[in-house]
């Protein structure tokens, strides 16, 4: 049996499929700083049989928490002579344009711990100056005296020739064997020294913390189960071994959220949808991602802490392309300096939480608005809801300043929240050249099912799927994931100047290296497949288009075909093509996938109920056009294939509620997924 555990901010979730083919879900409190405690607790609580675990898949926010809370290790950095300040100069940008007291992100390594060594490569990877080994020895001694806990190495052009980084690593291993070392080429083979240095430094920064965390978790698991097929979810949507995650913990930076996107792709495959917009609303954020023709997009354009006023820190590891905005159920409504209504990114979180939680929250949130106008039921809240408090908060904070009723104020909050989310959804679709009408939305998380219908209508999406057990869909995605590695290599060459022999060799070398990596990490027991793509651009451009390219050998015919495809893709994405401009390859991207058998979805047994018998209640819900209207509320647990719910209606389960608007209808499929058709005319 496969078991997943996922550590979130508040809860640690557990999901597995039992012998009857039913998914079993449980949760326990997250237990910082000893996170493994929560994992063991939730397993004990669920009563699962440890010896029946064949595969253990883990998701964790330990890496991102260590970074954002600045609880990592003291890192020493080794750089090429003349470049120790690259990490602090960063890119020199000042996104908060009209703030003359802007503060740049502080580097994770202070200047006195950034040392230079004599050595130099050029952009072709040729050695201009050999490595001065004495410099390295001196650096090691200095770091030892300073109490450094991890070393990062990033040299110029190491993406092209890692020779000197390998030498330095060897010298450190010889002279200070117990110290964790990260060299840039092990993680990324892309150009741009600042981004690469920062990535390497952050990996070194979280490495000791992650090592000790994984070791204790491993130890605790060993005491319960003899099976050590233990894996961890990475940011690229695939899993890897525990031992690999200790070496390159930064690959786990978005461990949790990407599982939902991957789950959306898998569910799409099962129900025959290959163009998908995955949409996940949690307590504090909404996340969306676009899957085109079944492909989850993975890139290395990830940042932490970046926003429109702050440069943040680039992390160039493979991460599923997700747009995340500060809009979730707990997002707070407020009025800005100009008197405009805003929602988020501040969130009431889980404590104190929305006003309706009754834990002392005083600020009106999206959840409060949904509850107040009847879209959510107070019966699904953990404690009794004080409606007068909710009304007062909405009234005072929103409705009064705009001179409207509290009902309209609540709808205003929802409209603004939807507008924010709509912008995020447009960012991944229309702004990239995709037509949302060609896509199916898969909406999940606690809030996704509540907002999906309205957003889909605005985007002219025709079909929305609310998966069975929508609130734990991410954990389900993890259960379904494959082993995966993304290797990206900068390989700057014009198409006209390509040496086919060289690039074919490069591909096979990358495949060979990846296979070795898989076998080292005990991932080679799964059937392995390769997927190649390239980042291409017109000569002179900077930004590239990622294009799947197939695994055939490169020759003249091959690139002629690739060119045609590139012109099409470029025009699709950017609205023009430059037929006469040379095409240039920038990066080669090899994805290696170890396919893991997936538990089959179980069909729900018919229960013979008439649709009428699945109605829980008739509740008043407030609508913009019609005011308060008695609306049918259905019990999701009773709905089966053959039931057809006409909007307006709400389908409820304990942890999420699906809103269906006028002129929309919902069918249930054999697996219990809700299939929402948006415009029924």
């Amino acid at each position, binding site marked *: 049996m496969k078991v997943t555990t996922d550590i979130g901010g508040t809860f640690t979730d557990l999901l597995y499929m039992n012998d009857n083919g039913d998914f079993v879900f449980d949760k326990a409190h997250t237990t910082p700083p000893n996170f493994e405690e929560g994992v063991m607790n939730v397993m004990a609580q669920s009563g699962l049989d440890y010896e029946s675990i064949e595969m253990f898949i883990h998701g964790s926010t330990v890496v991102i928490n260590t970074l954002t809370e600045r609880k990592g290790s003291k890192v020493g950095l080794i750089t090429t002579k003349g470049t120790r300040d*690259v990490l*602090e100069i960063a890119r*020199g940008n000042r996104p908060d*344009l*009209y703030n003359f007291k802007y503060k*740049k992100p502080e580097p994770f390594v202070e200047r006195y711990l950034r040392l230079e060594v004599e050595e130099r490569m050029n952009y072709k990877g040729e050695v201009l100056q050999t490595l001065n080994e004495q410099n390295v020895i001196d650096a090691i001694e200095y770091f030892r005296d300073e109490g450094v806990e991890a070393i990062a190495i990033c040299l110029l052009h190491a993406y092209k020739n890692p020779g000197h980084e390998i030498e330095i690593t060897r010298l450190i291993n010889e002279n200070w064997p117990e110290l964790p070392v990260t060299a840039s080429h092990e993680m990324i083979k892309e150009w741009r020294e600042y981004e690469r240095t920062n990535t390497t430094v952050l990996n070194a920064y979280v490495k000791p913390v992650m090592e000790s965390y994984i070791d204790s978790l491993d130890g605790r698991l060993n005491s319960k189960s003899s099976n050590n097929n233990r894996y961890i979810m990475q940011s690229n949507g695939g899993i890897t071994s525990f031992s690999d995650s200790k070496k390159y913990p930064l690959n786990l930076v978005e461990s949790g959220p990407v599982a939902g996107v991957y789950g959306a792709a898998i569910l799409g495959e099962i129900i025959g949808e290959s163009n998908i917009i995955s949409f996940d609303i949690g307590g504090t954020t909404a996340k969306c991602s676009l899957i085109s023709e079944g492909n989850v997009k993975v890139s290395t354009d990830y940042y932490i802490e970046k926003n429109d006023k702050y440069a943040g820190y680039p992390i160039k590891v493979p991460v599923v392309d997700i747009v995340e905005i500060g809009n979730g159920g707990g997002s707070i409504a407020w009025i800005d300096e100009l008197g*405009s209504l805003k929602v988020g990114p501040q969130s009431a979180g889980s404590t104190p939480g929305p006003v309706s939680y009754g834990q002392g929250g005083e600020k009106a949130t999206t959840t409060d608005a949904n509850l107040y106008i009847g879209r959510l039921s107070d019966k699904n809240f953990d404690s009794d809801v004080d409606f007068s408090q909710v009304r007062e908060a909405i009234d005072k904070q929103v409705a009064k300043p705009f001179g409207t009723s509290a009902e309209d104020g609540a709808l205003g909050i929802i409209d603004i929240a939807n507008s924010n989310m709509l912008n995020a959804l*447009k960012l991944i679709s229309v702004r990239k050249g995709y037509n949302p009408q060609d896509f199916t939305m898969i909406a999940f998380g606690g809030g996704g099912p509540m907002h999906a219908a309205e957003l889909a209508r605005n985007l002219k999406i025709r079909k929305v799927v609310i998966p069975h057990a929508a609130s734990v869909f991410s954990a389900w995605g993890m259960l379904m994931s494959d082993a995966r590695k993304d290797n990206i290599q900068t390989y700057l060459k014009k198409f006209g100047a390509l040496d086919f022999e060289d690039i074919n060799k490069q591909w096979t070398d990358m495949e060979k290296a990846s296979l070795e990596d898989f076998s080292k990490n005990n991932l080679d027991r799964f059937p392995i497949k390769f997927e190649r793509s390239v980042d291409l651009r017109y000569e002179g451009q900077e930004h590239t288009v990622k294009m799947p390219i197939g695994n055939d050998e490169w020759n003249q015919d091959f690139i002629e075909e690739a060119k045609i495809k590139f012109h099409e893709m470029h025009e699709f994405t950017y609205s023009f093509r430059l037929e006469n401009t040379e095409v240039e390859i920038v990066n080669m991207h090899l994805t290696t996938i170890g396919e893991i058998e997936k538990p089959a979805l179980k069909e729900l047994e018919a229960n013979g109920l008439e649709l009428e018998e699945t109605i829980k209640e008739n509740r008043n819900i407030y609508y913009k056009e019609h005011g308060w209207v008695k609306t049918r509320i259905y019990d999701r647990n009773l709905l089966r294939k053959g039931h057809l719910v006409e909007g307006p209606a709400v389908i409820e389960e304990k942890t999420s509620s699906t809103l269906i608007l006028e002129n929309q209808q919902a069918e249930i499929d054999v697996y219990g997924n809700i299939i929402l058709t948006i415009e029924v005319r």
Partner: protein
Amino acid sequence: MAGTNPYVKEIIKDSLMSIGEEMFIALARTSMSPIIYEVLDYACGLTDAKGNLISQGNGVTSFIGMLSPMVKSVLDKFGEELKAGDIIIINDPYIGGGSHLSDVGLVMPIFHENKLVAFSANKGHWTDVGGKNPGSLTSDSNEIYQEGLQLSGVKLFDAGVLNKSVETIITDNIRLPQFSIGDMWAQVAALRTGEKRFKELCGLHSKETIEQVIADLISSSAEYSQQVIASLPKGVFEAEDYIEGDPEKGGPYKIKVKVTITEDAFICDFRGSHPQVSHPVNCSYFGLLASVRVMYLAIVQPQFNITEGLFRPLKIITDEKSILSAERPAPVSMNFEARLGGAELIWKALAPEIPEKLPAGHSLSVCSVTVAGTHPDNGEDFLIVEPSVGGWGAANEADGQSGQFCMGNGETYNVPIEVAEAKYGVLVGNYGFRKDSSGAGEYIGGRGVVRSYEILSDNQYLSATYGRHQFKPWGMKGGEKGASSYIEVHKANGNIIGPLGVTTRLPLDKGDVVELVTPSGGGYGNPSDREYGKVEKDIKNGFYTEEEAMDQFGYKQR
């Protein structure tokens, strides 16, 4: 209008804001030139039917003030002749929105139901617009005619049809046309995105509602700025400084400002500044306006999207034909020197009054560098055109920022060493903080940066304008001045050229090393008040020796 749900207006505002951003993203992603896609030296926005700014996305600060005067000049020139599908191209610095010829603007009227409802506009720095120098940045022109092709507002598209003659004239008059023409198309695509989105919005809501929202946006931001002005210290505040010219040709040129703040007005009077000169450090009135607006925003500090209304209390007064409001045919290629110099006077005058908003003097200069030559590996011509990062001044509660682009830039990115070495025929030997002094103080000024280029092929040329070479960034409240900029060329034969602040088409050959050193920022407060622990850290971080620390901060090891 009555009866429209107030929250609908909020949604429309939101949509308007996102249009500016979307245009911005579209342009960056389709551009052909590093100065646009890396340095983000461009801006996109929407104005109302009268040319008032309502939504924008910009990467460099200065362009914020250039879109609306540009649109207004198009309105003045074409008025009723504007048709749907028209796109007007304009780079004339002396009429609306001008900085220098390299910044090329495109303006597109947006029609809905046959009525002009808005404009979509953008402006980007082209790699080359012709003229006497590669890169079109000339530090020795004495008339604008030497600086490139002038476009005073001509129809590039007439009712949606490309005017091929105009395209040909442009292509024939610029170097590396594939880049600039590529950028032109990127700009066109962004304009059309703006038009499309605006029209979609018109399809969802009534024209009256949208017009009302736009009017509200402008009037509410005007009210906001009035409130901020009312909260500022009242009085008359003065400052003087110099624009550094080329010592071989003249200068430095004195400039001055008198800022008068009343209950409802913010008046910047630049009268008495030096007359215009036949050296390209002049700026036009519209150039000055753009930079003064940046400075004004740094004081008003709105946390929301910027619209025309914010600028209502702002008044600018200049002499005719001054170095800060030059007229044709004065050269303006290096206009940012006067533009930023003029605007920074306001900073200098007000910083002691509002230290919670403004730090001590910063690098100020764009520190622009142009290197042209042939790549030694592929024999292709290359052209580096880049601004440089420098040190910012210390503030009332923090040290200055090190290695950051000047006030005229913003979301501007440096060119990575690895990218530069692959594309250009140079090797970057050093890219790090300068080790000599930056402005000492209780809080110290941010560090300038040394960037050195080893030249890898013969017959390359360097042009550069490094301001704050003769006059250091100013300190404040007892803080010391920062450090001045300089350029040195270490010839392969051992000779050293420089230190220089300005150089034009300086020949470089294989093995020469160009050292580019940007200014360090001014200090804040008395150096002897600096916390002991901080000085200790400065020493440990290699910024001062113990002796220097003793000299400057009275440091004694405990």
